[in-house]
């Protein structure tokens, strides 16, 4: 049985929330409307009222920061005239140099989507709190926007690299579970093919940066559509997804999921609980190592060494003896392994 968790959706300022507390929302449901600001225009004020530019502040009936509607008076001189707002917008500044008012017109209404399924618990200043009944997975990092889509497993094994050639039109709108790595080329292709998001065991920091730089340039050039998110579950470098977790993903292929790249978070709906991680492993636990040279490898903790022992780096620490899945037996700092526990405790 999945325990619902509270998720806070950050709302850009100026969003008018269109759902009520207690309402059930879907991932693609509009939860608010917002009118973003457009490139500001200068509204002549003092010239229209036959006054000196330096007098502008005495003439204004609005102040910077205020939102005005079209035709709303901006400045008035009793008996001499009035200056009206040409469009609805946000007043940004008044210039004493040229006697103009800087007004940022408001664009057309845009919808704000929450990307989660659940019940609205609270509407707060700048955020919406939603109770999400889904399996929740916290990654160690991520990138990109909030997305949702159907979960699809894109590689046969957790240690495999997700190749660009493996991404086709069938992945459009889906959240793809990759393996140990994806190149910048693969990520770029995935985005171009309309993939909603990618879940990876690891990624090279350089590849992720290259991808983000490409996206930034495309955004600046204009024409980029759709959102894309990346979730990293194990670490940086070429790191396979823990086989237990990978098996869980396989089991839940086809379920709807919400991915929050920047927060490193994934919700999978109608799913069994995610295999858990426990920071302090004990003898007999199945563990996963997080640091080189064993990063991402799974095994069984067979013994805890007495007293402190030096790691290869020379740091004296508590050491665990781990039998890795490839048969190798190695001492690993206990702080560098986590126990992986199936929800039933296995």
């Amino acid at each position: 049985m999945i325990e619902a968790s509270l998720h806070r959706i950050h709302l850009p300022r100026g969003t008018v929330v269109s759902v009520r507390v207690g309402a059930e929302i879907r991932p693609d449901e509009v939860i608010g409307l917002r009118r973003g600001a457009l490139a500001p225009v200068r509204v002549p004020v003092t010239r229209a009222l036959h006054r000196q530019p330096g007098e502008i502040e005495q003439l204004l009936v609005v102040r910077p920061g205020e939102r005005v509607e079209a035709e709303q008076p901006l400045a008035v001189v009793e008996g001499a005239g009035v200056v009206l707002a040409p469009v609805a917008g946000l007043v940004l500044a008044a210039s004493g140099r040229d006697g103009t008012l800087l007004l940022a017109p408001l664009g057309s209404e845009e919808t704000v989507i929450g990307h989660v399924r659940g019940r609205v618990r609270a509407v707060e200043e700048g955020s919406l709190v939603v109770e999400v009944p889904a399996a929740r997975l916290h990654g160690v990092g991520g990138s990109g926007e909030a997305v949702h889509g159907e979960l699809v497993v894109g590689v046969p094994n957790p240690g495999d690299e997700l190749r660009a050639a493996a991404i086709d039109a069938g992945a459009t709108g889906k959240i793809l579970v990759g393996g140990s790595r994806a190149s910048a080329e693969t990520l770029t292709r995935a985005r171009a093919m309309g993939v909603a998001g990618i879940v990876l065991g690891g990624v090279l920091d350089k590849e992720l940066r290259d991808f983000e730089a490409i996206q930034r340039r495309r955004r600046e050039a204009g024409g980029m559509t759709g959102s894309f998110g990346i979730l990293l579950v194990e670490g940086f470098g070429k790191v396979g997804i823990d086989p237990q977790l990978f098996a869980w993903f396989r089991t839940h292929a086809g379920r709807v999921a919400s991915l929050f790249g920047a927060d490193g978070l994934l919700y999978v709906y109608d799913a069994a609980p995610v295999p858990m991680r426990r920071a302090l492993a004990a003898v007999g636990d199945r563990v996963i190592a997080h640091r080189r040279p064993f990063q991402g490898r799974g095994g069984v903790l067979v013994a805890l060494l007495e007293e402190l022992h030096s790691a290869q780096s020379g740091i004296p620490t508590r050491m665990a003896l781990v039998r890795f899945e490839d048969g190798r037996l190695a001492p690993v700092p206990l702080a560098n392994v986590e126990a992986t526990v199936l929800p039933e405790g296995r």
Partner: protein
Amino acid sequence: MTIDARAREPGRATAELSLLVDIGSAWTKAAVVGRAMGRWRIAAHAAQPSAWDEGELIATLAARLTGRADARVSGRIATLLADAPRIAVHTPARPGRIALAAVSSELSGQAARSAAEAAGWVVVEAVMVDDGRAVVDRLSALQSAEVDAWLIAGGFDEEGGEGALEVAGLVAAARGGGRSPVVWAGSAGLTERVGAFFEPGVLRAVANPRPSADRENLLPLRRYLDGLIERLVERGTARQLAPIGFGRAVAELARAARLRVVGVDLGARYATWASADENGMAESRVVALGGLASPTLTAPGGPARIAHSLPLAIDELAVADALQNLRARPGSIPQTDEELAVVHGAARDLLGDLATSGPQPGGIDLLIGSGRTIAGAPLPAQAMQMLLDGIRPIGIVQVAIDPAGALGPLGALRDDEIVEGLGTLRDDLLTPLGAAVVCRGGRPGHFSMRVTVHRVGWRSLGPIEVRPGQLEVVPLPRGQVAELEIEVDPAVSLGAPRRTRRLRASVTGGAVGVVLDARDAPLILPRRSDDRRAVLGGWRDTFVREVRPPTEGVA
């Protein structure tokens, strides 16, 4: 000092114990303070990932006391520890988030950002009139920012400035009402006009951190933002915050010893710089994202900078991944030599940023390193190297570490108790690494300094000539005092203005000894990678040549 006041069972031996606990974002450090032979001592200390449970920490401490505790209580030591009163501090649960709008990136923006970061705020969005963005993009960025407060800066006090009014208007438009406070730290002459942009009671005016082109005055803004973060983010628990406790302890150490003390605490998320003069007048800078998970390390250029500073040939891509893993899993420890080198390189880099991000103290008598990376380094010499390479404390300075992480918890005591606590534990609190003579400048072909070390009861060493770019380590055990006779080259500075080329100084030894450091400040490295690595490797080898293994390590 807190004393165990539990009711004692008649005829059953008990122990007077206290725990000093520092719960960091990644590691928890704990020290057992117990009474031995009538004196309070730090009897054991341990550190473990904060994600582990408290029972494990108690068990580790109990194991460390086995064989050292009185036989009558040794069987119950874990229970006694679990029940012992504790003085605890913790890293703030989350940093305060602030949006900054300023006129100039280099003047008002830089000053306001420095003040905010030194007070522990994270600047989540910064817009400047000269940032090259369109007004609509600045507005959109501010509207999207999730913040606890807003900071506006710009305009010199004498001149006012329309640019400052524009950024204030931008904030007013982006903020769109609500409860978040706005701090105006710009031209004093504009305060009333800026105030009119916001609802009554929202704006608070603070002295301009850049009142004129040639003057910076960060302190009033920093002090105000210090208070604001306490009110908005960590209500009512300021003394229990590790950075605050650390600063208070450093101030009291300085006052009690009549020394100029600088303490640096480098954690996973936070970095704290606390400096205090002989009178205990203290200044702290708390950088919320200044620790080893700092985004500055992984930002473009960061991995290359760290790779450049390593004595090992580790490519930039591997350094980048190692730094990201350090950020992603701060509770794990470097397992390989390469990972340790990257972590120490990152620590040196962060210490350098911390040292240069604020006013430099006139001189340092005692430099203290805290945090697991420094105080838990495998070798004392590595801790010494991180501190000297990162901070470059010009002059003659004693160097020590806080191995038990006890300074923060002791700083959480009430004012009158800090004095008692530090005084009681003075012999155990710090582990002296030794002393360093660090000079700036030098001329090729000439010695930078010529030092003779006079040790009581031993023959004198030297004169030792140290040339520009060179480093010498002279063994001087803990507790041993030596008189240094120093002759410096005319082109060399030891910080303070001097009238003579010769000076004498008394220093005390430690786990490393006396470091004679003529490597200039900042460090100058060859451009060719092979040459650079050879130089860095030479310095590293000089530091670690005379070392002793530490007595206690991490969990």
